[in-house]
């Protein structure tokens, strides 16, 4: 199992035909740009983090009727099955589709190879990794909602519209991210 997993994840990074092709970052980055243009021309600029509280509101309102109406924040952003929530569902479906297609093709192209973890301190036990991921998720949504957007809404969409808020958010978030990545994790061993 472990060996086949490796095959799925290793991708001929230095093959001749590969070098001649358009680099991955350019191809998929440009596609994200086109998706952004489509989104703006149809409904609104891309944004992901709004859907999290909207989805929470949707679920909790089913469990405790009247919950959403009591919350000031949900009254402001709206809740239920919105365009944003459907975008989130599509995001999941698109990733699943890409993953399954990659599998079907015999593992190649399922994903570009990302060299193994660069930060040794990050591995730890599975439990520690999961707690870290959970806490990371908690903080990135809380922070994104406080700022009014995440990487997608503030940086991708914000900078595409040349919003100053996107520039400020991007600078603070990347600066803090870099600082904390250095503080929290150790240098790679290799």
């Amino acid at each position, binding site marked *: 199992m472990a060996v086949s997993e490796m095959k799925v994840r290793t991708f001929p990074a*230095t093959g001749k035909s590969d070098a001649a092709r358009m680099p991955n*970052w350019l191809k998929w*980055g440009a*596609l*994200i740009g*086109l998706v*952004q*243009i*489509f989104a*703006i021309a149809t*409904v609104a600029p*891309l944004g992901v983090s709004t859907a999290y*509280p909207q*989805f929470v509101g949707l679920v909790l309102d089913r469990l405790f009727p009247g919950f959403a109406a009591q*919350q000031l*924040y949900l009254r402001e952003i709206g809740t239920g099955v919105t365009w*944003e929530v*459907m975008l989130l569902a*599509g*995001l*999941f*479906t*698109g*990733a699943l589709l890409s*993953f399954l297609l990659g599998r079907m093709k015999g593992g190649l192209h399922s*994903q*570009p190879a*990302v060299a*193994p*973890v660069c930060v040794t301190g990050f591995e730890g036990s599975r439990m520690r990794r999961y707690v870290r*991921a959970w*806490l*990371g*998720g*908690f*903080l*990135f*949504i*809380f*922070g994104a909602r406080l*700022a*009014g957007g*995440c*990487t997608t809404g503030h*940086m*991708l969409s914000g*900078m595409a519209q*040349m*919003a*100053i*808020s996107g520039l*400020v958010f991007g600078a603070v*978030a990347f600066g803090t*991210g*870099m*600082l*904390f*990545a250095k503080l929290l*994790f150790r240098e*790679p061993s290799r």
Partner: protein
Amino acid sequence: MTTTLLLGFLTGIGFGFALHRAGFSRCNLVHRGLWLRDFTMLKVMLTAIVVSLIGIAALSALSPELVHWKIKPLYLWGVIAGGFIFGVGIALGGYCPGTAVVGLGSGIGEAILAVVGGLMGALAFIVVYPWLKPILIEPANLGKITIPSVLGLPVLPVALAFALMLVGVIWWLTRLERRMRERAKAPVQN
């Protein structure tokens, strides 16, 4: 209304597919990016921004009614504090709100935990919002300002100049990466 939801779903599929193919389902990519070991993350984002920047500006010049602008306001305290919390979150988790869902689509354990954490962070934000709003969101709100609105210049030329600048950054990152790779003599993809 249903059309809007369908559009959201389709947009999400395109976005999720591209993010997965670019390698964002694993937290490595963000960690390596924050450690300045690998610029894939930045290059993908900047490429997407350049493409959409030009596309939106061209669209707004040709048929302005097609562009659904959504400029986020710059309320200084909230954007800065949120950016800080967000930065700590991405450093810890290695995901952002969108890529966590992409990781979830390819069944990665840490991504599942990050999404669960995100939903709980969203609930926490809904609960504390009435207290945070008057302290961090309402004061020091500079409004929906953009680079062209601050400079008092039309959108299209500013967008083209901004895009050109970002292309310069991408070119510089690519060169920097090549030089780093030569120095380290370690195989890194893309």
